[in-house]
C-alpha cells in the first residue's frame, strides 16, 4: 500500500512542476533577473540540466537515481541534495515533533478539564483561549512572541541555530518559541475534539458503572475514559504532524531555523526540480510513517482492533 502511494507522489510532483510556467534554466541564465537571457545561453543550460530530454526519460533517470540512493544535486547551489537533507531534515523533524508534543500537551488537559467541568466558568475560559489559538495565525503569534520577549524582557533567542546535541540549552531557547507558536495554533482543534470525545465517553454505561462503584474521578478518567477517548484524538494528532510540517515554513522563517520548509519554498520559486521532487518525497515518507505509527497505536489503545 505504501509503495504505490509514494510512486504516485513522485509522479504528481514531477509532472505538476513541469506544467508550471518558467523554468530553472531561465532563472539561472538571467541570474534571478539580474541579467539578460540570450538564445544560445538558455539552450546550453537546458542541456546541462537535462531539460531537453523527453519527460519520461527525465522521470526515469530520476527514479533510477533514487533506486541507487543517488539523490542528485541542487540546480541552484550545485550541492548534493543528500547534504541539504542531512542539514535540514533534523531541524524540521525536531520542530515537528516538539510542535505536535506541545499541541498535545496543551490540548488534552484543556479538553479533558473542559469536558469534566462542562458549562462552568473554567469550561468557557478554556474554550475561548482555545478558539483564540485557532484564529491567530501562527506567523503572527510567532512575531508577537519575539516582540514581547524583546520589549518586556529585553531578551532574544541566541543567534545561529544549534542542534540539541551540540548545545541543548541554546537549542531549547531557540526552538521552544516556534513550537509554542505553531503548537498553540494546532492545539485548538485538538482541544475541541478532546472535549467532544470526552463528553461522549463520559456518557457511556461503563463509566456510569464505575461511578456507581464509588471510584474517584481521577481514577475513572485515567483508567477508564482515557484510552477510549484517545482514538479519534490520536487520528487527528497524526494528521496534525503533517500540518505541523507544512506550518514549519512560517516558523522557520520567523525563528531563523534552517529547516526544509523554507528551502522547499525557495526551490519552488527557482524551479529547482531535483530539490522539490526529493523533498516532497521525503515529506510524503514522513507523513506515511506517522500514519503507520498512528495505526499501530490503535492496536495498543483498543484491543478489539488487530492488525497482522
Amino acid at each position, binding site marked *: 500500500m505504501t509503495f504505490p502511494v509514494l510512486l504516485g507522489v513522485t509522479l504528481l510532483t514531477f509532472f505538476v512542476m513541469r506544467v508550471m510556467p*518558467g523554468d530553472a534554466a531561465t532563472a539561472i541564465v538571467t541570474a534571478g*533577473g*539580474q541579467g539578460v537571457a540570450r538564445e544560445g545561453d538558455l539552450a546550453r543550460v537546458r542541456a546541462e540540466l537535462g531539460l531537453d530530454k523527453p519527460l519520461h526519460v527525465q522521470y526515469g533517470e530520476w527514479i533510477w537515481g533514487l533506486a541507487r540512493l543517488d539523490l542528485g544535486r541542487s540546480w541552484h*547551489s550545485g550541492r548534493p541534495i543528500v547534504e541539504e537533507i542531512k542539514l535540514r531534515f533534523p531541524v524540521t523533524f525536531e520542530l515537528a515533533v516538539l510542535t505536535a508534543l506541545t499541541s498535545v500537551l496543551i490540548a488534552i488537559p484543556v479538553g479533558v478539564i473542559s469536558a469534566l467541568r462542562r458549562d462552568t466558568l473554567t469550561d468557557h475560559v478554556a474554550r475561548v483561549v482555545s478558539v483564540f489559538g485557532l484564529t491567530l495565525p501562527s506567523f503572527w503569534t510567532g512575531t508577537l512572541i519575539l516582540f514581547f520577549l524583546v520589549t518586556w524582557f529585553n531578551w532574544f533567542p541566541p543567534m545561529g541555530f544549534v542542534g540539541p546535541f551540540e548545545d541543548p540549552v541554546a537549542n531549547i531557547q531557540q526552538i521552544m518559541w516556534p513550537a509554542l507558536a505553531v503548537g498553540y495554533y494546532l492545539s485548538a482543534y485538538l482541544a475541541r475534539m478532546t472535549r467532544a470525545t470526552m463528553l461522549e465517553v463520559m456518557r457511556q454505561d461503563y463509566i456510569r458503572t464505575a461511578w456507581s462503584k464509588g471510584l474517584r474521578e481521577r481514577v475513572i478518567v485515567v483508567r477508564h475514559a482515557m484510552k477510549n477517548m484517545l482514538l479519534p484524538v490520536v487520528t487527528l494528532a497524526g494528521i496534525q504532524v503533517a500540518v505541523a510540517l507544512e506550518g514549519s515554513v512560517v516558523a522557520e522563517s520567523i525563528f531563523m531555523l534552517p529547516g526544509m520548509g*523554507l528551502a522547499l519554498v525557495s526551490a519552488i520559486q527557482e524551479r529547482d526540480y531535483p530539490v522539490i521532487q526529493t523533498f516532497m518525497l521525503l515529506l510524503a515518507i514522513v507523513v506515511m510513517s506517522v500514519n503507520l505509527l498512528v495505526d499501530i497505536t490503535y492496536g495498543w489503545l483498543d484491543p478489539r482492533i488487530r492488525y497482522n
Partner: protein
Amino acid sequence: MAALLMMATAACAPAAAPAPSSASAPRAEAPSAAPSPRPAQASTGAPPPAAQATRVPQPQVAATPTRVATPVPAVQPGEKPVYGGTLTIAHRTEPATLNPFKEPSITTHHVTFPIYEYVLRRDPLDPWNKIVPDLAESWEVSPDGRVYTFRLRKNVQWQDGKPFSAEDVAFFLKTKANPPSTRIALAAYYRSITKVEIVDPYTVRATLERPDSVFLMHVSESRQPITPAHLMKDANGKYTDKVLDVRAIGTGPFKLKDWRHGVSVVLEKNPQYRIKGLPYLDGITYYIIPDRSTQFAAFRSGRVDLTSVGGGTYLTPPELKIVKEQLTGKASIYLVKTALQYAVRFNPALKPFDDLRVRRAVHLATNRQAALDLLADGIGVMGGAIYPSPWSMPQSEVIKMPGFRQPKDQDVAEAKKLMAEAGYASGTDFILAVRQPDQKEGEWLQNEMSKIGLRAKLRVLPLTAYYDSSSKHEFPAYFQLLSMPTGHPDDIAEYYTSSGQVYSQIADPKVDALFDKVAQTVNEADARKLSAALDHYLSVEQVLGVVIAHPDGYRAAWNRVRNLHLDGAGQLDSQRYEDTWKTGE
C-alpha cells in the same frame, strides 16, 4: 583586552593627518594612522578620468515626515580605534554560492565583500563620484581612451599564502571578456576588450575595441572582485568554478571561517592583510534572517549590530520611529541609495504605445510624488530613465519639469488633451505585464493610468515567465523593478537600444547613436553632459519608459560600531569593514 589596548593607545601620540598605512606597528598597539587610513592616490601619466569630474549636486531625498533628524555619529577627532570584537550583520537570504566570479547576485556579494578586493573601487566616502585605487595603486588611460594600464601593488598575498600578481588580473579580464560558460557574473561588462597583456609581473594592460566611458566604472563595480587565478584553473589549465564554489580565498581583510548553511556566514580577521594594523575587528558574522520583523527584533535586542541591506529588509516607518525615539544616542539610521527604479517600458511597436502622444500622456499624468509616498514610504527620489547620479539630468531641474512637478493639475489636463488628440478620448484597453514581486506597484500604476483612460489589464507573471515573455515582446508594456549598479546609462542600454537586446522593440537610431556617443566620449565631463541629454531624450522627448519612483531605504546600526562608511552608500556598494571597530560590549 580592549581596556589594555585603550590604555596603550592613550599613551601614543594621536596622529594628525592620515599617514600611509604601511606603518608596521605591532598589533597590540593601535596604528599611528588615523581611523580612515587611505593611501594617497599615486598616479603616473594622465590623471584618471574620475579625478577630472566636476562635483554634481547630490540627489535630493523627497522631504517626508520620516526624514530622520538624528545626525549620524561620525568618528570624533581624537577617537581611537579599538581592536577586537565581532561585528554581527543581518542578511536576508542564504547565498547559493560564495563564488563571486560566477554569481552576480548581491546575496552572495554582501557576505564576500570583506574577503575580496578589486582592481579599483568606488571611494567609500564618495561612491557616486570617485574611483580610488585598490589592488591597483595607479592606472593610466591612453589619450584615445582605448588602452587601460593598471599598475598593481606588490607584496599582496592571497589568503592561502600564494602571491598576488598581474597573472590574476589578466586571467580575470580574459575570462570575463571571453566567458567559457554562462555562469560568469556580468561578463557583458568586459565585452569590448580585445586584448589583455601582462606587461610585467605587476602591470596589466587591457585594450578595448572602442573607447568606453563606463569601463572604469565596470571594473570598480562591487561585484567584480579579483579572484585567484591559480584556483580557477583545473589540471589542464581550463577554467573551473569548482574550487571557489566551496572555498573563498581573497586578498581582503577577512577570511572565511565557516559557512553554516541557512544559519550564518562567519568571517575572521586576516592577519596577513596588506594594510598593516588592519582590520580592527576579530571577525564578522552574517546571520541569515529571512523575516523582516525578526530582523528588527534581533537588532533591537542588541544581538545584531547592523541591519541588512537589500529589498524587503529596509526599516519600515514604525521601525525608523522606534530607532529615532527610543534608541536616541544609542543607534543610528543610514540612508541607502538603492539605485533601483520602478519603471514601465513601452513597446513602441504595439498599440496604444506606438503613438508618442499616448506615451507623453502617461509621463505627464503619473504622480511620482504619490508613488514615492505610497510605494516607498516616502523614502527615495524622483528621476528619469537614469537614477539620479552624476550621469542623469540634474535633480534640481527634474523636480520642476512637467510630469515631475507638483501640483499635477496642469499636467493631467494636458495628458487628457493628448489622449483625445491621439484618438483615445474614451480611453483604451491594453495588457500590462508585471513581475509577481512587483504586483503591488503595478496595481498602483494601473490605477494611475486609468485616470487618463488607459485601462491596463494586469498580467502578473512569475519571474522566469516574465523574462520569457519580454524577450518575445508579447505585450505593449512591461513593468518591473530595475537596478542601475553604476548610475551610468550603460546600465539601462539593454532596455532601450536595438542592438541585439531582448527587452525592447525600439529601433530608434537616435537612441543608439546617443548611447554610443556617451560611451565613446573620452572626456568625462563631456560624457556626463551627453548622458544628461540622453536621459532627457529617453524620459521626456521620446518617453520610451516612465520611471515612477526611485525607492531608497534605511538601515540601522548601533552606535558602538564606529567608522561605518554607510551614509549615502549605494545598495551595491561594497562594505569591507577593514577600518571599522566596535567599542563597549
